[in-house]
């Protein structure tokens, strides 16, 4: 979490207008879902990773580690696409060639799609999304709620980490039953402290005139049309290539 968030705030394209990153990334994502995966997939994966690493200047290692997050899910699920279950005389498992094809396509599509998503998350801090969320019709109150959650996540994550270290120092995780008890206690005390934090924040914000709205200055980015067109053209070319190859 810290790594993704850190790069989102510090990458080379941090100050680009969020639309300049969002539109191409989402378009590429849609293309990878819509076009035959084995053709578009590798191209999209390569394109998104290139943009992440060479364009935004994210270390390759970080980009790959983000890709690895869903890998466990794929590893567990995908092989079973290639095996079919039959119920005639009891039940039996059989290898199925079309299943193998499906498994391969699904893996490639998922990896390509994740690379598009990771481009987006590694280059655009969550705070920059808010004007866009407003524009697609999400009510101001909900957007404020989302932003507040974002801020508090870091406050609470720090406490959770320290709390866990403190419990570990007292051998709270030395056996499974102790681990369950420790984690349960940690959860309870974190929740209690979260509610207290909300109450103190209410006092702190009231001192600044809070009456229900959390209005702040919106981040100012200038949309560069040439940049956006250029990026969309590249995405279009990738799509065309994926279609024609």
């Amino acid at each position, binding site marked *: 979490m810290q790594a993704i*968030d*850190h790069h989102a*705030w510090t990458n080379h394209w941090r100050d680009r207008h969020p639309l300049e990153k969002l539109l191409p990334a989402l378009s590429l994502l849609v293309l990878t879902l819509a076009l035959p995966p084995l053709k578009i997939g590798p191209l999209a994966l390569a394109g998104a990773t290139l943009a992440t690493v060479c364009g935004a200047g994210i270390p390759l290692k970080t980009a790959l580690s983000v890709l690895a997050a869903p890998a466990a899910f794929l590893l567990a699920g995908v092989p079973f696409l290639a095996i079919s279950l039959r119920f005639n005389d009891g039940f039996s498992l059989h290898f199925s060639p079309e299943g193998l094809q499906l498994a391969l396509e699904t893996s490639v599509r998922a990896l390509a799609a994740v690379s598009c998503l990771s481009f987006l998350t590694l280059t655009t*801090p*969550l*705070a920059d999304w808010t004007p866009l969320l407003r524009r697609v019709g999400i009510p101001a109150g909900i957007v404020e709620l989302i*932003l*507040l959650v*974002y*801020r508090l996540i*870091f*406050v609470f994550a720090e406490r959770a980490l320290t709390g866990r270290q403190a419990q570990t120092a007292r051998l709270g995780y030395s056996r499974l039953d102790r681990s369950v008890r420790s984690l349960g206690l940690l959860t309870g005390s974190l929740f209690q402290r979260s509610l207290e*934090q909300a109450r*103190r*924040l209410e*006092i*702190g*914000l*009231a*001192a*600044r*005139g*809070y*009456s229900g709205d*959390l*209005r*702040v*200055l*919106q*981040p100012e980015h200038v949309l560069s049309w040439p940049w956006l067109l250029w990026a969309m053209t590249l995405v279009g070319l990738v799509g065309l290539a994926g279609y024609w190859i």
Partner: protein
Amino acid sequence: MTAPLLALCGVDYTYPGGVMALHGLDLTVAKGRKLAILGANGSGKTTLLLHLNGTLQPTRGEILLSGQPVRYDRRFLTDWRRRVGLVMQEPEDQLFAATVGQDVSFGPLNLGLTIGEARERVAEALTALQINELADRATHTLSFGQKKRAAIAGILAMRPELLALDEPTAGLDAHGVAHLLDALQQLHAAGATLVFATHDVELAYAWADQVAIFHEGVVLRQGETAAVLADIEVMSRARLRPPLLLELAQLLREECGDEVWRPPRSREVLLAQLRERLQDDGNERCCG
């Protein structure tokens, strides 16, 4: 004589649970002063501060803002909180936005300022606390000292007449304290009235021009810093110990019988004066 900026007269406060936190408290905040509210931990300093901007309402007694009795309706409170800014001890209790600049803009926008005006206020507040370069930094990546300053900037951007700070130096190291006091000193020079609650007698001695000794819900004594801190009876009743610098100065004065000498408020000055006295061989006033 003009009315003081803020005056609390015979204020009682009892928490909903039944705990009585303030007990006939009197306090006067004069314009342009640096007032330290000095008390041990748990003496209720935070409760007192929460009365200064109307967060808590006294169960009895009166509060006067520029000589006028306060009211607790929305309109009056809005104006009151514009004039009296409260900085909480924990910056996490006050910072809520994703970036420093956004956070600081919250108060000004609540005042109904335009985007342009709010932007100006943000720049001004960040400059006053010397953290311009943090404007676009994510709040959660700041150090503790930076968070403290960002929280103060958030209040400052509302241009309060009175700035009340709860334990402003808690958790900061010597360097951080010096840095923060420097910024506050500049605000004071620019005309701000400052009130801060602290348990640190050395800080109060070095920095306040008035001190109110607070203990068990009452102000035992309010007055000029050196005089109040030298009042051994009041200090020990409040479980406080006089600052080392003052004790040293008093010792020197007693032993050397120098009535005119004003005790220095900073460590450097005391050390320099002491050195001078000790070197001054011909001077028989001190040390036989």
